[in-house]
C-alpha cells in the first residue's frame, strides 16, 4: 500500500506524467467541445467517431502531399464541416433519427477514409510518415509549468484556448443565445424570428469542424502517420464526457483532463505493477470510466430540453 502511494506521489510530481496527460487530453477537449456545440443546439452528433477518422486522414494526406501543417489543419476542419453538413441535411433538414444517422455517418466517413487511403496507397506495408508539429520549446521559460508546456504543440494550446472562447460565445453572444434557444425550445425560438434549421445547421457544421480538428491532432501532432483504428472509440468517449460536463465547456475541459490523467496514470501503474494484472484490464478502464461517468451524472444531467427531438415547423 505504501509502495503504491509512493508510486502515485512520484507520478504526480513528474512532468512526464503531466506532459502525457495534456497530450491524451487534447483530442478529447476538441472532440468534446464539438459534441457540446451540436448538443446545445439540440442535435446529438454520433458521427464524431467517423468525423475524427476523416479529419485525421485528410489533414494528414494534405500534409503528405506537400501542404504545410496549418493547411492540413484547415483541410481537416473543412472535412469535418462537410461531414457536419451531411449530418445536418439528414437530421435537421430531413429530420431522420439522430441516433441512426450519426452512426451511419460514422460508418460512412470511416469506410470512405479507409477506401481513400487504400486507393491512394495501394501497396504500402509501413504507413508513410510526415513531419508533425514540433513542441513549443520557447515555452520552457514559463515559470513552474514551463517544462510541461514546452513538450506540447500549438494544437494543444489551441484546444485549451478554444474552451473559454466557446464558453464565451455560448453564454455571452447573440449567436450563443440563438444556439441555446433552438436547443431548449425550437418552437419559441422560431416565434422570436429565429430560423431554427439555419442555426442548428451552423452549430453542427461548426461542431463537426472541431471534431475534424480533434482527429487531425492525432496524425499531425501526436503521431506522424495515419493508421486504421487509430481513433479507437475516442469519439464515443467525447460523447460521454459531454454528459459528464453537464454541457459546459469549462467542465468539459476539466473532464477531459481528469480522464486523460487517469489514462496516463493507468499506463504508469501498469508498468509499476509489472504484469501482476493482465494489460487488457487497464485498457478497459477508459471505457468503463466513461460509462461510470454517465451513471454518476444520470440523475443530475440537465439535458438541453430539445436534444434528439427533430423540429418540424408547424408540427407539435
Amino acid at each position, binding site marked *: 500500500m505504501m509502495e503504491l502511494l509512493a508510486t502515485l506521489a512520484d507520478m504526480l510530481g513528474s512532468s512526464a506524467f503531466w506532459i502525457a496527460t495534456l497530450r491524451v487530453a487534447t483530442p478529447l477537449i476538441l472532440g468534446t467541445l464539438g459534441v457540446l456545440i451540436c448538443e446545445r443546439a439540440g442535435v446529438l452528433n454520433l458521427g464524431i467517431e467517423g468525423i475524427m477518422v476523416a479529419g485525421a486522414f485528410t489533414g494528414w494526406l494534405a500534409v503528405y502531399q506537400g501542404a504545410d501543417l496549418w493547411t492540413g489543419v484547415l483541410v481537416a476542419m473543412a472535412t469535418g464541416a462537410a461531414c457536419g453538413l451531411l449530418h445536418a441535411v439528414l437530421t435537421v433538414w430531413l429530420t431522420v433519427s439522430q441516433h441512426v444517422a450519426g452512426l451511419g455517418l460514422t460508418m460512412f466517413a470511416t469506410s470512405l477514409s479507409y477506401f481513400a487511403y487504400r486507393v491512394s496507397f495501394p501497396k504500402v506495408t509501413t504507413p508513410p510518415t510526415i513531419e508533425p508539429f514540433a513542441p513549443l520549446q520557447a515555452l520552457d521559460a514559463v515559470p513552474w509549468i514551463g517544462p510541461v508546456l514546452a513538450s506540447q504543440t500549438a494544437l494543444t494550446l489551441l484546444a485549451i484556448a478554444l474552451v473559454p472562447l466557446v464558453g464565451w460565445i455560448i453564454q455571452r453572444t447573440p449567436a450563443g443565445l440563438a444556439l441555446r434557444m433552438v436547443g431548449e425550445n425550437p418552437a419559441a425560438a422560431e416565434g422570436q424570428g429565429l430560423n431554427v434549421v439555419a442555426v442548428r445547421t451552423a452549430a453542427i457544421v461548426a461542431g463537426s469542424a472541431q471534431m475534424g480538428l480533434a482527429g487531425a491532432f492525432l496524425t499531425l501532432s501526436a503521431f506522424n502517420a495515419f493508421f486504421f483504428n487509430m481513433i479507437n472509440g475516442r469519439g464515443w468517449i467525447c460523447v460521454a464526457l459531454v454528459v459528464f460536463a453537464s454541457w459546459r465547456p469549462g467542465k468539459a475541459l476539466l473532464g477531459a483532463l481528469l480522464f486523460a490523467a487517469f489514462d496516463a496514470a493507468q499506463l504508469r501503474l501498469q508498468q509499476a505493477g509489472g504484469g501482476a494484472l493482465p494489460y487488457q484490464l487497464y485498457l478497459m478502464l477508459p471505457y468503463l470510466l466513461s460509462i461510470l461517468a454517465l451513471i454518476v451524472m444520470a*440523475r443530475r444531467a440537465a439535458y438541453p430540453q430539445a436534444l434528439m427531438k427533430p423540429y418540424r415547423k408547424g408540427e407539435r
Partner: protein
Amino acid sequence: MRLEARAGSSRIALLLAPFAAVLFTLAVCALLVAWAGAPIGQTYALLFEGAFGSRFALSETLTRATPLILTGLAAAVAFRARLYNIGAEGQLYLGALAAVAVGGLHGGTGWELPPMLLFPLMLLAGAAAGALWLLGPAWLKTKLGVDEVVTTLLLNFVALLFVSLMLDGTMKDPMAMGWPQSVAINPELEFSRLMERSRVHSGLLLACGLAVVVWGVERFTTFGFALRAVGANARAAAFAGLPVRRTMLVCALISGALAGLAGVGEVAGRAGYVTLDMSPGYGYAGIVIAMLAGLHPLGVVVSAVFIAAVLVGADSMSRAIGVPNYIADVIVATALLAMLVATLLTRYRVRWGRA
C-alpha cells in the same frame, strides 16, 4: 424547404424504399469505383459474380449471411421498441466465448455431458451471455435514463478486450503456436454442413427459423403488441397501462440473445474456435440490415443476404480488379443513410419554397 406529412404511407412506397436506397447507393459508389480507376460495369459484374456466380460463391454468401441474419434480427427487435442496441458486436463475441466455455474448455471436450445435452446447453449459454451483456445498458436506460447508444458502443470495446484477455489466458489454445485463438469446441458439437464441399452450416436454418419466430412473436403475441406500442409512443403505452420498463428489458434480453447466438454460430458452424478478428463488424452491419428491412424480421433475412453478397462479392472483386474491398463497407454505410432518407420520404413530402 419544408416537410409535409403524408396522409398515409402506401404499401408500395414502403416496399420500394429499400430498392430505391440500394440503387442510389450503387450509383454513388460507382463514382468511387471510377475514382479508383476501374471500369464501373465490370466491377459491379465481378462483385455480383463473386457473390452469386458459382456454387462456391453462393455458399460463401449464405455462410456470411448466417451471423448477419441474427445480428440483423437483434437490431430489428430492439429498434422496434426504440431500444438502440448498438452493442451486437460485443454480444456476439460474448456468445462465442460462452460457446467455448461450455463446449470447449475442460480438456477440449466441454463439460462431461452427452453431446445431446451439451449442444442445447451451448446454445443457451451463448444466448444468455449476449442477453446479459445488453441487460446492463437496458437497465441503466430504463432506470436512470442513461443513453443506451453510448453505453452499448463503449461496451463493444470492453467486450473485445475481454476476448483478448481470455485468449491470452483461460481459453488460450496451447497448440496454436502463440497465435491468439481459443481452444476449439468438441467436434461433436459442431453444426452439420448443409451443402457438400462448402461452409454453409445448419446455423443458417436456425437463423431463418428464429426470424420466423421473432416475426410471429411481434405479430401475434401480447408481448409483441406491447413491444410495438412502446416503440411507437412509450408515454402513451405507459398511460394505457402497458409495462413499459419490463417490455424494454425483455426486449433487451431477446435482442442480446440473438446477437449471442450469432457468436455461437460462428464458433460451432464455421471456425470451431474464437479469434479476435472473428467478426468484421457483423454487429454494426446488423443495424444496416435491420433498417433496410424496415425492421421487419422476415425482411431481415433478405437484406442480410444482400449485405452478405456485397461483402463476399467485394472480396472476390477486389482480388480480380484491384478496387480496395473497403468499397463494401462504403456501400453498406451509404445504404444505411440512403434508407433513412427513403423511409422518411414515404412518410413526408418535401416541399420547396416558403410555406
